[in-house]
């Protein structure tokens, strides 16, 4: 293998990995506040992208995306108020089940709203064949958009969770909800806020990846499983690590494709995940054995 080819595999891994990473970030926001995993996160992406695609027929692209993010944010809040908040005796098992149910219902609703066809947003800059060349290999400009948006989101989230009062309050809720409430934190509102935030970020992610992946009503589950894998690989709750883990998984898959057959890349990804779960459940990048929750 020559250098351009190795580079090309690397860039291909980054393309796939950037998608995984941006999906995984959304998982961590809700996890950081509530300690639950939202299995409907993948659907937030698709709802966001689909809404933007519909809006883009009437308004310019940036406005359409903004509109889609706002609408999905509202949807996220609504879902928390109407469903999550009402779950009685909210154990992890119950909440997992509710979010799985939500993901199915949202997906089926989308089938009846946007039908079964694949849609996509236009490339943000240039066309589908616009590429950047690095050392003889090529990468789509849209991938740079995905990486850029991920970086901005992760930085903003890190600052938010670390330095703002609201962010700290949200983290407090995750650590010990009762204690947080005793400190005068409105824990219910924090949970709602986290759903809104992750829905909005999911929608943005859905829009940014739509030109690369196309958008179809039933893609959410596949994306969510990958995002969930990456979130666990990085260590639940750690957004920065999630991005690293996403790129790691993407590169690993590219390596499998280059050396073996692409048919096995999914299996390899899952086997790695199972190994991580068994031997290092707190994630690839955790310094301690216990779970780390710095956003």
């Amino acid at each position: 293998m020559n250098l351009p080819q190795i580079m090309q595999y690397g860039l291909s891994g980054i393309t796939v990995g950037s998608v995984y990473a941006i999906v995984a970030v959304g998982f961590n926001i809700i996890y950081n506040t509530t300690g639950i995993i939202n299995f409907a996160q993948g659907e937030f992406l698709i709802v966001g992208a689909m809404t933007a695609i519909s809006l883009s027929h009437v308004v310019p692209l940036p406005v359409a995306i903004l509109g889609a993010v706002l609408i999905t944010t509202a949807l996220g809040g609504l879902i928390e108020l109407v469903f999550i908040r009402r779950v009685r005796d909210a154990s992890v098992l119950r909440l997992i089940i509710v979010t799985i149910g939500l993901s199915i219902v949202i997906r089926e609703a989308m089938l009846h709203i946007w039908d079964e066809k694949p849609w996509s947003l236009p490339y943000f800059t240039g066309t589908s064949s616009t590429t950047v060349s690095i050392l003889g290999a090529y990468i789509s400009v849209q991938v740079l958009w995905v990486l850029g948006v991920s970086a901005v989101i992760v930085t903003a989230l890190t600052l938010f969770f670390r330095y703002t009062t609201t962010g700290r309050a949200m983290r407090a809720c995750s650590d010990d909800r009762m204690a947080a409430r005793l400190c005068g934190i409105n824990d219910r509102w924090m949970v709602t806020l986290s759903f809104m935030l992750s829905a909005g970020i999911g929608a943005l992610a859905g829009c940014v990846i739509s030109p690369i992946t196309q958008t179809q009503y039933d893609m959410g589950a596949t994306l969510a499983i990958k995002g969930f894998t990456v979130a666990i690989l990085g260590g639940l709750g750690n957004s920065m690590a999630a991005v690293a883990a996403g790129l790691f998984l993407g590169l690993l898959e590219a390596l499998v494709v280059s050396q073996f057959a692409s048919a096995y890349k999914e299996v390899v990804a899952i086997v790695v995940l199972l190994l991580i779960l068994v031997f290092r459940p707190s994630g690839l990048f955790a310094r301690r054995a216990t779970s780390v929750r710095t956003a």
Partner: protein
Amino acid sequence: MRLRIYYPVIAAALLIVVLHLALAATGKTFYMTQITMSAYYALVVIGLCLLMGYAGQISLGHAGFFAAGGYTVAVLTTCNLNGLRQTPLVEWLSRLGVLVSWRDLYGNEVLSVSPWPAFIAAILLTALIALAIGLPVIRLKGHYLAMATLGFGLIIYRLALGAKVLGQADGISGVPAFHLLGELQINGRTPFRIQNYYIAWSAVLVAMVLALNLVNSRVGRALRSIHQSEEAAHSLGIDTYRYKLATFILSAVLAAAGGAMLTHYNGSIGPSEVTVMKSVRYLAIVAVGGMANLWGAMIMGILLNFLSLRGVFGSFDDAVFGAILIGIMLFAPQGLLRVPKLQVLTSLLSRRSHG
């Protein structure tokens, strides 16, 4: 006194006969086809109920065990060894009496493993897989366990889609009937409808007896204590890990048995049996039944699968299951059978509200 727990089994057996008579009287015996299929799915649900309701372990990969059973019998009973007759392995198997020669629908002669050895192999293989997966995975909790079982299901799904011997996307068809004993056989053709109705129900009742026996034994009490507080159970000297692992394997074996028998009944199996959505459906059914309620899970397993297989939900099939998951968790976390209004009804029937 312990016999008391089996009274419902006798009642259920009677009801099964009554249902048959009712169907026959109304000329609707064709419903038996879907009831039979649903009964095999109910085996998975009973196993999952033991695992989730009593041992408190979530599994998002139970369709994987179902498929492990189904695919094993499908491969063994359809793989044609005719060309390999002279090889030592085939000769040895032939002498052992595990091979059978038969003709398929197109008149071709097939030499394959006969159904009973195939069935036993399927059960043993699944138990081994469950042991290998369970050993490390059972230690995990919450999301990590959910993810690990989901991952296991995905691996089986990928194998089914990727391996040539498993038929890839098309699955395996042309699986022969399963001759159980004398004239009894698992066979999906119309003339065998009534006997298959009873075969499937017998399998369900046997599974129920097994499961009831387990939850009412020492093991069952241990499991319940694990579910309530694992630390407390542990401090009482209960080997929580071993009990959970045993339950995991038992529930996998029940799923595999269901998969193997349904594969013979349908004459085929495909990768759609191993999707995440399938595992989620089993989960939904256990939730509707009321988690730690074997009878509830079994009844819902049959009822919901029956309606789904008949296409009653039309294009809203998946949506119905999703809505059920949400609705139950929101409004009736103890399951549909424990909803107060229904309880009034049941107490009227039983004349004693507690027993």
